[in-house]
């Protein structure tokens, strides 16, 4: 069974800490995405990557950075965590374009619920 695995299900961090959220996929997908999910706001795209060492900003990149050193791994970094970054973070991956992408869509991980205190 193909998977997107997020390393932590729940995480509690202190304000000002540097936080790493890890995501690994075993489907050899080119595209990877980080979203945050908040009640009433749906899913908002933070960053995405179409290839190794490539990244593009999404709709809400402020306060975040990403790293993709290997195809299967996409890390989200909170440089200095703040309480307004308390949220559910979802990682997703997909095939790069074409019929494969539109037929199978995105595959999501189970999410990391981050609380910043």
């Amino acid at each position, binding site marked *: 069974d193909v998977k997107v695995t997020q390393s932590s299900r729940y995480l509690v961090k202190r304000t000002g800490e540097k936080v790493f959220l890890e995501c690994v996929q075993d489907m050899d997908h080119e595209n990877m995405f980080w*979203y945050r999910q908040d009640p009433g706001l*749906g899913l908002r795209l933070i960053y995405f990557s179409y290839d190794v060492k490539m990244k593009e900003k999404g709709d809400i990149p402020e306060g975040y950075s990403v790293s993709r050193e290997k195809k299967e791994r996409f890390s989200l970094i909170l440089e200095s965590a703040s309480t307004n970054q308390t949220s559910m973070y979802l990682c997703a991956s997909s095939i790069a374009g074409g019929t494969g992408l539109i037929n*199978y869509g*995105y595959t*999501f991980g*189970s999410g990391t619920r981050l609380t910043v205190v």
Partner: protein
Amino acid sequence: AQSVTQLDSQVPVFEEAPVELRCNYSSSVSVYLFWYVQYPNQGLQLLLKYLSGSTLVESINGFEAEFNKSQTSFHLRKPSVHISDTAEYFCAFMNTGFQKLVFGTGTRLLVSP
């Protein structure tokens, strides 16, 4: 601006009743349309999609959605819901030629006995 609107944040229904979850999109180009479902404490799963052809698409668990180009809508329906359908449902679209999904704000379906 390109966007997806889900008009209802929460829809409570009784078991075996019919339900419709509404979705409207705004885009100046052709789109692919999707419904995703998120069960409690899980990630999102693809429920069904409209790519082309027949405007009525169905899922394996009894949901269906109809693409209406003139009304720019893609409403999700089920004639008889089960308790196990309790979840959050997200409508999304992808512009043809792009690789990013744009999501709506979600509708929480609450099915009670």
